């Protein structure tokens, strides 16, 4: 509703803070909560300062990663008991005969906590003590696009801010010459599901909070390179002339918006150098490149993990990596090999790299897809599994989480989350809590309503996950 007004307010603040990108927007809320000096949503202490969200888009199978169910192998090939599936939503298996599909790999116990991890993830297994596996996630959407939207914005209706925007809105960005919310999508894998830019939209928050897509191939940010034939020196002179003239004119018209604009031009010019520099990994030591398995400029998930670390070092608040190709309706075994082959080691490397730099303590890393996959067989090509929303797995590491710990359970066939259910909103509440935000009070007014990332129903922080 008052977004127009609010954005002006924010822009004023932005101008006062000297830059269009980095500012403590917490101050903005203070302005609205006129009677209190501190935004109500801030908790006394934050454990995490930033988030790296590793989105395995397409929906990795929990039954081939973290959720071991002996009974599933036992009933392999038999009809799926109707007691599990009756009245439940179903995607591509609508109208098909449902039969149980046993695990397509082996599981072993790893780490001090003895966590089950599948053979598809040997590198993740090595860091079993760094991660907290949640095996009882539930979501509300069974198709990819709405399920991503739900995972990112807590709502299925378009136009809501994504979590990266929320976090930047609540805490501001500390990155000097970079946006506070950066999104990267990697190349490689099998026929990938589409990903809409809605997933990193600021929704009804000011557009400054939207995720900015960085590309590790081609232009790192749209229009960040000078037009053909324009040298850096010419561009510098040009930007200087523009800001000088805007400033000059503004002496007559005295519009605070012009000051914000001047700051934006100065920042844009800085980004023209800082972003390509940051995105260039060729100067990283060879052993670091090897650790991730990254080749500079290859656009791989490995390169993006390395870049995520660099962005985290620069203070970027929310880094969202997408790796697509996890939608295994058929050929699950083969494609799990492909996907895990591309992501397992780099993910491990990211955690280790953060750890060795002392950054894992205040960087929350989250791994998971928009949903899981059915315990039932689907046969598009070789054996596969359909979309599944009633129980699946994700993990968190660092940022004040416990590590070496498993939370929640699904039933004996890995269908329903039955113990310590974690709804997507609960996961958001937990992430916000780690970041020092009380999700219940973290609201923004839009169309007359107080919107929360965590929805209208009662969501809870999963305290057991927090160290």
């Amino acid at each position, binding site marked *: 509703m008052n977004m127009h007004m609010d954005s002006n307010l924010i822009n004023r603040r932005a101008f006062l803070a000297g830059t269009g990108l980095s500012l403590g927007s917490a101050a903005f809320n203070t302005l609205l909560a006129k009677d209190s000096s501190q935004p109500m949503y801030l908790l006394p202490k934050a454990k995490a300062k930033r988030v790296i969200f590793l989105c395995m888009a397409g929906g990795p199978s929990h039954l081939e990663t973290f959720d071991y169910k002996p009974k599933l192998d036992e009933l392999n090939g038999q009809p799926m008991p109707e007691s599990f599936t009756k009245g439940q939503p179903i995607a591509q298996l609508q109208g098909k005969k449902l039969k149980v599909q046993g695990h397509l790999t082996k599981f072993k116990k790893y780490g001090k906590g003895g966590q089950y991890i599948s053979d598809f993830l040997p590198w993740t297994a090595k860091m079993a003590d760094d991660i907290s596996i949640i095996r009882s996630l539930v979501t509300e959407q069974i198709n990819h696009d709405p399920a991503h939207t739900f995972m990112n914005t807590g709502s299925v209706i378009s136009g809501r801010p994504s979590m990266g925007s929320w976090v930047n809105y609540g805490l501001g960005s500390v990155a000097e010459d970079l946006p506070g919310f950066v999104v990267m999508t990697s190349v490689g894998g099998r026929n990938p599901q*589409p990903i809409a830019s809605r997933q990193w939209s600021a929704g009804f928050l000011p557009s400054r909070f939207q995720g900015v897509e960085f590309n590790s191939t081609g232009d790192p940010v749209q229009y960040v390179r000078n037009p053909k034939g324009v040298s850096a020196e010419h561009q510098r*002179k040009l930007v200087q002339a523009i800001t000088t*003239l805007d400033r000059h004119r503004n002496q007559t018209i005295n519009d605070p918006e012009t000051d914000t604009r001047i700051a934006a031009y100065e920042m844009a010019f800085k980004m023209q150098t800082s972003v390509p520099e940051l995105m260039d990994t060729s100067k990283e030591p060879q052993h670091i490149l090897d650790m991730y398995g990254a080749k500079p400029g290859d656009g791989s998930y490995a390169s993006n993990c390395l870049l995520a670390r660099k962005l985290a070092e620069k203070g970027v608040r929310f880094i969202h990596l997408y790796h697509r190709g996890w939608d295994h309706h058929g050929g699950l075994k083969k494609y799990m090999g492909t996907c895990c082959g591309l992501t397992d080691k780099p993910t491990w490397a990211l955690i280790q790299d953060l750890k060795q730099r002392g950054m894992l303590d205040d960087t929350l890393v989250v791994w998971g897809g928009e949903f899981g996959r059915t315990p039932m067989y689907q046969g598009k090509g070789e054996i596969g599994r359909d979309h599944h929303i009633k129980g699946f797995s994700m993990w968190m590491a660092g940022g004040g989480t416990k590590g070496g710990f498993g939370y929640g359970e699904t039933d004996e066939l890995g269908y329903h989350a039955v113990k310590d259910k974690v709804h997507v909103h609960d996961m958001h509440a937990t992430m916000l809590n780690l970041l020092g935000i009380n999700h219940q009070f973290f609201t923004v007014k839009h169309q007359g309503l107080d919107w929360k990332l965590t929805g209208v129903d009662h969501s809870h922080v999963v305290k057991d996950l927090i160290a």
Partner: protein
Amino acid sequence: MKKIFLPLLIPSLCLATLLDFNRDVRPILSDKCFSCHGPDEHGRKADLRLDIEKEAKNDDLMAIVSGSPDDSEMIYRIHSEDEDELMPPPEIGKPLTGKEKKVLEQWIKEGAVWAEHWAYVDPTTHPQPSVKDKSWSAHWIDAFTLADIEKSQMKPGPDAEPTTLIRRIHFDLTGLPPTSEVVRNFKANHSLHAYATQIENLLASPHFGERMAAYWLDLVRYADTVGYHGDQPHNISPYRDWVIHAFNQNIPFDQFTREQLAGDLLPNSNIQQKVASGYNRLLQTTHEGGLQIKEYDAIYAADRVRNVSEVWMGATVGCAQCHDHKYDPYTIKDHYQMAAFFADLGDRGFGGNKLPANRPPEIQIFTQDQEAELNLLTKEMERFLPKVKQVELGRLEAIQKKLSASIKKAKKNAKPELEIKLNQNKDQINKLATSQQITGFKSAQQKKSALEKLGRWSMIAKAGKPRTMRVLPRGNWMDESGPIILPAVPEFLGQIESNQTRLTRLDLANWLTDAEKGKGKLNARVLANRIWYLLFGKGLAPDLTDFGGQGTPPEHPELLDNLALSLIEKQWNIKAFIKDIMLSRTYRQATLPAEEYRSFQVARRLPAEFVRDNTLVISGLLVPAIGGPSVKPFQPAGYYRHLNFPKRTYEADTGEAQWRRGLYVHWQRQFLHPMMKAFDAPSREECTTQRPQSNTPLAALVLLNDPTFMEAAKAFAKKIVQQGGDSYRKRLAYAFQEALSRPPDAFEENTLAQLIDDQKSIRSESWTPLARAILNLAETNVRR
């Protein structure tokens, strides 16, 4: 923009004046109390309602005792130090401020005077207030604004300079800057008469429809792609052109409404009206494998309710999808009854991954030229062969074809008989027409069918058998326990009189705009407020979307009422309504934000489309054609790489299509052109009543480096060299006049001189940096 703090100041009113329930009290109750003590019976606590006077003042609970704060439980509770008693409960996180507590107390003391929510009461005519400065203006609108300014002990701001004003009306009415010549003439004669003439000219310009459409398309969420999952394109651009045409033809808003919501249901509806009914198809759809049809039936139904209520009613009926509305009297039943109006529409199409998406029904549209050509060809066909004979020829030829095929397959001994028949058939054809006639006819026929392939398709509404609609408890599409319902308007707003068993979309359209039998007066307020916003940069009610309890009450309710009624009086004549406002002195005020003055005019950056258009006009590149298929300007390579099913590569248009107005840019919902996005154009997944105004480095990078803007700078440089004269000063003066409608000052001259290596150069390359600088200035891109 200086006045941004004003709305915040209003609640902190001086408590000496009498409180107004709608302005001062209801917003507090709504925001802090209604979620537990409001319309939603599921969330209601202590069986107490504070949204209905009778209940709030109920003797049992004594929540509010008029005139007696000390006896009112509410006042006791809001001050209580016991956490269990304190209201609102601390765990809700919405404490009352000290000022709010005072307001509630004072209001009860004053007698707790109740009033119905302003937006649900029909506007009434308010007499013009008297003003001290009678000489300021004789326009009726000015009486209201001036009275208000005088009340706040301020003075109206100065009038805008002629240059500012002529630029303003051009941007506001066409989205394009004035030519240098128009500016020069207006500077020479800017009498009120000359000004009115300019307005009339602009209202008559075909670009007026484009300007209005740019806003309307945001409301109705017009886009060129389906939105969900594969985001495939769909056929709808003729609807966009219809909107432009409708504004240009000044179709009254009630008819405009009918044609969009129910163009297909109008008696003997013509092609244009059917195209207009494409409004019903603008929602996002999915073509994802594994979609559950009933789930998407529910998603689409809710989408339509959200849009129709936000666009026409300024209401968030969509919020009642899962439960009764928390703040407004819309029940969950109202929501589904409203959805039922649209239950006659299919949209269950699942065409896999086709491009464009498979979304029948569609209709084919031709341009006027094509239409004329088609008519000519039809006549030509008839000239060679009258209609009756055409039919006969078709019949005979079909037989001929069949016989020829049979002969090929037939056994030897059966052939002669068939050949005889074939010859007989040929004789019949020869008798029917000469070979010359047949050749002439066929040639015209071929041309016609080739031309028919060029027509554009557009999705339309087509009433089918309505689906059975139920209330979906908690919005859950799998729950079939809710009652079956029929189309109806929200109960508290009355009902539609009809002798039909089932109401239709046409009934809804009439109800929305009929001032006597429907809610036309209420909805006129919504529209009047939005048009005011387009002309001033801020609505009289600041919240353009929500006129409900959680919206912000109008700051000038009397003026808004009178404007709404004037729309009705003018029989929804949009052009006349706009002209009336623009003739007011309030509209003509400068935006200067000096403290002692008050102006209603807000300076603002041009909307994304007009940022593009303005640059293209200045550089001389704009191709000002109206309508047509959407166009594809340059776009960064690989921007669509995330799209799939199927994968897409973007091919930028060449030639004239590259330089069309922003309004025609291909609207890919999931990946809107990055230039448009950087300047806050919405994805159009949902209704947008007001775009945010950001000011980001990403937008700066667009103006600096986007090839479209670079090409424009080069073209502008060329113009400067060719038409600007023979010296640096002359050329700069020319460039400034073209871009900013004013001459440069000495400082500007000196600063820009540093960008030019050789001021004598007639190579346009030398002047490109200067052109880029001017196109990048704040002033170039701001409407003042």
